[in-house]
C-alpha cells in the first residue's frame, strides 16, 4: 500500500495547489455581467466590482482624445431584452464610457456596433473600461430583414 499512499499524497498536493490558484484567480478577476439599466439602479457599494456591460455604440459618440477614447453605449428596452429594468416611461438607457487600455479598439468597433466593455463604474457615473470588445469576425449573420425574407427552397 505504501506507494499508493505516496501517490495519493502527491496527487492531493497537486490538486490542492491548483484549486488554491484557481480560487485566487477567480476572486481576483471575476467580472459581473450587468446591463446598462441595471448599472443605473446600482447602489454605491457595487462600485468596487468589475463589470462587463453590453450595448450598442451610439451614433456619433466616439471621440478620440489623446490616449483616451470616449463613447456612449446605449440599451433600448423597447427591443425587449432580458435584464432590462425599465421604470415607467424610461425606456432607453445610456452609459458614458472612457477607454484608455493598451490594446487598440477592434476594427469592428464603430457606431451602431454591439460592444462589450469591461471595467469599473466611477462615482461620477462614467464607466472606465480597460477592455473593449466588439462583435466581430466569424459571423455577420443575416440581417433581420433577409432572415425573414429567406425561405426554404422547394424542399
Amino acid at each position, binding site marked *: 500500500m505504501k*506507494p499508493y499512499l505516496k501517490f495519493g499524497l502527491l496527487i492531493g498536493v497537486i490538486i490542492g495547489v491548483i484549486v488554491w490558484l484557481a480560487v485566487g484567480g*477567480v476572486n481576483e478577476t471575476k467580472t459581473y455581467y450587468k446591463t446598462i439599466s441595471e448599472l443605473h439602479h446600482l447602489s454605491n457599494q457595487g462600485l468596487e466590482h468589475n463589470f462587463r456591460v453590453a450595448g450598442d455604440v451610439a451614433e456619433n459618440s466616439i471621440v478620440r482624445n489623446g490616449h483616451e477614447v470616449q463613447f456612449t453605449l446605449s440599451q433600448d428596452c423597447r427591443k425587449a431584452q432580458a435584464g432590462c429594468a425599465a421604470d415607467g416611461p424610461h425606456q432607453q438607457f445610456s452609459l458614458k464610457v472612457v477607454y484608455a487600455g*493598451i490594446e487598440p479598439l*477592434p476594427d469592428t468597433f464603430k457606431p451602431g456596433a454591439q460592444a462589450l466593455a469591461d471595467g469599473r463604474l466611477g462615482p461620477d457615473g462614467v464607466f472606465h473600461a480597460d477592455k473593449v470588445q466588439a*462583435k466581430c*469576425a466569424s*459571423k455577420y449573420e443575416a440581417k433581420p430583414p433577409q432572415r425573414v425574407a429567406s425561405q426554404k427552397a422547394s424542399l
Partner: protein
Amino acid sequence: MENLGALALLLAFCFSIYAIAASLVGKWKKKPFLTVSAERSVYAIWFLVSAAAAILVYSLVSGDFRMAYVQQHTNRAMPAIYKFAAWWSGQEGSLLLWAWLLSNYCAVVVFTNRRRFRDMMPYVVSVLVATEAFFLMLITFVASPFHVLMSGKAIVDVLDGNGLDPLLQYWTMVVHPPMLYLGYVGFVVPFAFAVGSLITKQPGDAWIHTTRRWTIVTWLFQSTGVLMGAGWAYAVLGWGGYWGWDPVENASLLPWITATAFLHSVMMQEKKGMMKVWNAVLVSATFFLCIFGTFLTRSGIVSSVHAFSQGPIGKYFVSFLAVGVAATIYLILDRLEYLKSEAQLESVVSRESSFLFNNLILLASCFAVLWGTLFPVISEAVTGEKISVDAPFYNRVNVPIALFLLFLTGVGPLIAWRRSSLDSLKRNFLWPTIGGLSLIVVLFALGIHKLYALMSFGLCLFVAWTVVAEFFKGASAIRIKDNVSFARATVELTHRNTRRYGGYLVHMAIVIMFIGFTGSAFNKSVTAEVPSGGTLNIGHYQLRVMQIQDGENDNYQWGRLVIDVSKDGKPIGTMQPEKRFYKSSRSQSSEVAIRRRAEDLYINFSGISNASQPGVEKKAVVQAYVFPLVSCIWMGYWVLLFGTLICLIPSKNRLQYPKTQVVGIATKHATVEK
C-alpha cells in the same frame, strides 16, 4: 441547383439512418449482407455530401446571389480564393464542412477496414454514421445552406453580396478552419473504435493499435489549427496578442489537451496494460469536447469576440451531447471488468508515475479552462448573477501547470519503467540540472528577476539538454559500431525507432514554443500621437513618421504611415502600417507592419486624431510594440510538424515489435522498445 443540393443532403440523411439500422440489425440477426449494405451506404453518403458541398462551392465561386448563404458571405469583388473560403465562414456552411469531412473519414475507415474487425465494425460504423446523421439533420432541417432569398413567393436575385469580413480576408483564414475541423472531426474515429471494442468486449487493445496513427494525424491537424489561429490573431488583430483565452480559443484548446493526454497514456496501455479505463474515458472526453467546441462556437451560450450567431441549433447539440455522454458512461461502467489493469504502480520515481502525473496535470489544466469558460453559465445557475473570469485567471492557473509539464517533458522519457535507481537518475539528469540551474543564475545576474520567466528558461535548457543528450548517446553508439558519419548515424538512429525519436523532436518543439511564450514577459508597448515628422522611441528603436498618406481604390479607402526605423541610431529600413476602410462591408481593418526577427517590432496605425477639426495639425495615433522571441512559437510549429511526421514513418526495425494487427488475442505486448 440549390434544390439538388438540398435533395442530396436529405438523401444522405436517409442513407445514414438506414446505415445505422442495417449495421445493428445485421449484427444482431447475424445477416452479413445487411452489415455490408450499411458499409456501402457509407460510400453513398460520401458521394451525396460531396455533391452537396460541390454545389455550394460552385454557387459561391460563380456568385449565385439568389442564395442567402452566397449573398451573406461573398461579393463580386472578392478574390476567388476567399469566395471558396466563404464555404466555412458562416454557420450553415461550416456545418456542411463538418459533415463532408466526416463523410470522408467514414469512407476511409470503411474502406481500409473492409476485411478486418468483422465483429467490431458494425458498431464502429454505427457510431460514425450516427454522428454524421446528427450533422446532416442539422443542415437538412435546421440550418440549411441552400436557402434562397425570397420575397413573398418570388425568388429574389440581388446584384451583389455583403462580402466577407475583412478580418477574415487573410491567408491563414483559408487554411485555419479546415485544419481545426479536420482535427475535431478526426477524433470521431478513435472514439468509434473504442466504443466498438467496448461493446464487443475485445480482450486486447486492438482499437488502440488501429487508431494510433489516426490519433497522431488528427492531433497534428488540431495543433496546426490552434497555432494557425494564434498566428492569425498575432498578425491581424493589431495588438500582437496570439492568445486571449477567449471562449472560442478555449473550445479549440480543450480537445487538444485531452488528445495530448491520450497520446501519452495509451503508451501505458500498450506497454504495461495499465490505465485502460482511463484511456476509454480520455478518448470519449476528447470526442465530446470536440462536439462541445462546435456547440460553444455555434450556440451563443457564452459571449465572445467571435460573435456567435444565436442560432436555434444549441438545443440539438445539448441533446446530442447528453445522450452521447450518458450512453458512453453507461458503457464504460458496464464493461469495467474488461478494463482491469494488468500491472500495478510500484514507485513514485518511475515512467508509469511520470505518465500518471502528466495526465493528471493535463486534465487539471483542461478542467480549469473548461471551468473558466463556463463560469458565466455556472455562476448564473448557482447565484443568479452572471460572472465571468478573465485572462489573469487562466494564466494564474495554467502557467504553473505548464512549467510542471515542461519539467515532466524532460524527466518522463528518460526515467525507467517500474522504478528508477538513484544511480540512473544521476547519470541522466545531473548535467541537465546543473545546466538549467546555471542558466537561471546567469539570467538573474543579467537582471531578469521574473520568477516564472527564470524557471521557464531554466527548464527549457534542462529539457533541451536531455533531448540532445539522448540523440547524441544513441548516434555515437551507431557511429562507432557502423563506422559512419555522425549525421548519418543520427538519421539511422531515428529511423530505427521513429516513434521514440519523433516524440523527442515534438518535445523539442514544445521547448522552442515555451521560449517564445516566455518572451511575452518582456513585451514593451508605446502608444503616441505623432505628427508628420515626429518621432517615437521604444526599446532600442527610434521611429520617425515621414509621411501620412491616404487614398482609395475600388475596394477600400486607405491611410498609410511611412515610418523610418532606426535601431540604436543605425537606420534599418522603413515600415508602412496601413489602415483600410472596406466599402462594401463598411468595416475597417488594420494592416500592421511587423519586422520579424529575434524580437519582433510591431507597428499599428490605429487612427488619426483631430481628423475632423479643421485648422489643427493631423496627428497619427501610432501603437508600437516590441515582442521578444515571439518568432520561436512559429518556428516551434515547424519542428512539431517535422517530429510528428517522423512519428508516422514506420520504424525500420519492425521485427522488434510484436505483431499488433491480430485481433481477438489478448497479447501482452512485452515490448522490445526501450
